[in-house]
């Protein structure tokens, strides 16, 4: 029984890891008030999804899908290719967010979200 569970866990180790990473990211996102940390959390979440995506295309013992003699087992190249794009997007998102944080720090003198709110005041109405 327990062996079975372990086997299943092992079989889905990448998915499992990605979910755990995702949750870690979310946890950080929620609990930290520092904007930089929030961004890091965002990146962790992104990474989790990337891992998940790449894991879909992975095949045990597979190689890069280049037509060379002697290699017969390929991984699915599509997810990797997509994730490359995803990484680019993630990088630009992060960079942009960092630039905004710099601006925020210039305007408010802090990068703590609570303090920013306190300075800005609750202007909901």
């Amino acid at each position, binding site marked *: 029984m327990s062996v079975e569970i372990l086997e299943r866990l092992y079989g889905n180790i990448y998915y499992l890891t990605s979910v755990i990473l995702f949750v870690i990211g979310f946890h950080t996102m*929620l609990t*930290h008030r520092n904007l930089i940390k929030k961004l890091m959390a965002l990146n962790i979440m992104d990474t989790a999804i990337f891992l998940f995506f790449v894991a879909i295309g992975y095949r045990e013992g597979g190689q890069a899908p280049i037509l060379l003699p002697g290699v017969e087992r390929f991984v699915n190249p599509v997810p990797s290719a997509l994730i490359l794009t995803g990484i680019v997007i993630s990088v630009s998102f992060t960079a942009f967010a960092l630039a905004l944080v710099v601006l925020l720090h210039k305007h408010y003198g802090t990068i*703590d979200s609570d303090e920013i709110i306190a300075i800005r005041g609750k202007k909901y109405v």
Partner: protein
Amino acid sequence: MFTRDTLLLLPILAPMLGALLLLLNPARSWLWPRVVAVLAAFLSLVALVVVFNLRQAGTILQLNLLHVVDYGLSFRPSFLGVTLAVTVAALWFLASIFAVSFLKSTHSPRRFFASFLLSMGGCVGVFLANDYFTFFVFFELMTFAAYPLVVHAESDHARRAGDIYLYMSVAGGLVLLFGILLLVWATGTAEIAPKLHVLLERGVNPYLLALMFLVGFGLKMGLVPLHIWLPYTYVSAPAPATAMLSGAMNKTGVYGLVVFLTVTLANKSETLAPAATLVQENIGLILLGLGLVTMLMGGFLALMQSNIKRLLAYSSISQMGYIVLALASAMYLTKEGGLAHTAAIFHAFNHALFSTTLFLLGGVIYLHAGSLHFDRLGGLARFLPFTAIAALIASLSVLGLPGFAGFGSKILIHKALVTVAEHGDSWWLLMTEKLFVLGSAITAAYFIKLYLGIFFGKFKGTELRYRQEGWLMRAVLGVLCCGMLLVGMFPGLAMRFFSLAAEGTFVNITYLIKKLATVDFWTAYAYGGVFWPFALGIIVFVIATYCRFFAWKYPKWLSVEALVFRPAYNFFLMLCCLYATKADGGICDVYDRGGTISGRLLRQVKRFDDLIDEGYEAVGHGTSQIVEQARQLDQGVSRAYREVGGQVHTVAHGMSVVDAAVGEAYEQVGKAAARVPEDLNKLEGIGSTASTFSLQNVTIGSLIVAVILLIILTIMYIYGGQVL
């Protein structure tokens, strides 16, 4: 392209183009807006008369415009529609002439005349419409176009009146739209044609539909629970505008109600006849109650007013009660309701005449005496004899004395109610007739009050502004009075005419004219149908004066407004404020609670985190011990090396200089590296010590995302488990 049917557009387009002309031309001339207004109204009237003549000759004009989506504008006036349209256009023409001299000194004449014309276009369009969509389009156009008329004075009172008018009208319009949509959905078309059987077949509740239309049209008419906008509006608008609000725009509501009740709620299927009759009778009974309440309440409230326009406004409400009574009788009597139906239309026509006259007269009085309050008026008969005579004719018309306009229609309504009582055979239907008499008596009472208060006694105001009415005003009032007298002198002729109009629309009946021919007004009068109320009215007036009833101001909390609308409005406002101030900033509040719980949860996770940290620390400690030992070993080895390599040492002395440089460099790097975490620490600030869970800004967003995600996931899993 321009066939004879295009003629239908002219009466609508002429005033609208006039309004457009006024809006686009910013010339500040005195004459320009007035000339445009009168000419446009005249053009519209002439076109309508032509249409009316064609219709009488049997030609039915039909015009479909912009027929695009499923519903375009479509005009195909019924006989009734054309009749009322001509009436209304004539009144409008007269009122615009009146306005020319009345609005001598007021501001923004351009705005006034533009919206005057625009609402005229809307009003005429309503009467010419073939389907409810067209009807609704022009109905709304008229409502919105009349808004500037209401707030024309731009005083606080006017603005408040405008707000009430606007929001109630929008609400009423939307309810009406809902009704129309329901009708369209049920029957597939917005056409004005008998639909009751379709409704019954499709299982749509006809009462609900009737309720929606009743609210929509009743609001425009000022039926009792929906009447509160009416006094405010009528008081604040200038006299010609008020005259049209009451005399013409009110009639769109009446027309709509007539058309809906007698055409749309008519039945064409033989098999469904009993059910349809039941529905019609029930609606008739409900309307009977509504009409009575409106009539009596309007009358009582009018009795208590001390402002001419307010009194007339409540009088107008009361008169609407009469019309509803007639309509209710028509519904209740179904197949035999032709007479009642004719009575309703007839009375609507009469009301258009005399309420226009009365409100215009109110304007004259205001212009000359500078006030509308009885406290500041009196004895005007000496100064304004023409006005006094006109007012007498109009008042007697409202009362329905023989020879005046209201006479024929009131007799007919009375007859209809008597028929209802005979037909229904129950005590309270009999009471209806008695209450009708009472209502007439109250009408008589407040008109006596009005007349005595204004024209007799001593003048209580400060000074009279003008000595005489302008000749334009006199002409207009004279024409109107002549009209009223004519209608009053020959009620039979007028009735025959309106029965024709009724026959054109009211599909259930085929016998009308013959039966109506038997009505003899003058003998009916001899039976006391109208005389008694008048006598009773004098008694009521005397009693009321004796008991100082007029001085009695009913407490504010008693009014419908204070009882229903204001609490509702306040409640809504409170809801808005509570909801918006608290909720928007803190949907957070709700989430906050969820947040603390999840925060607690997360703290557990953090403890786990700490545990791992401790583990790392312990491992690190062990590692550092190992490293320490290794270092000692290393030192030993290096000592050995040093002993062995003493000579090498001297050789390498030169090298050591370089070594020192490198070391220094490293030190610098180290210092720089040390500075970086310091800076980072500074940046982090309190953030790093955030152990308490706080929800702000982005956090709220992400939390909401998470919560919604969880909710959706849960729901979907529950469902998905069942389905897939």
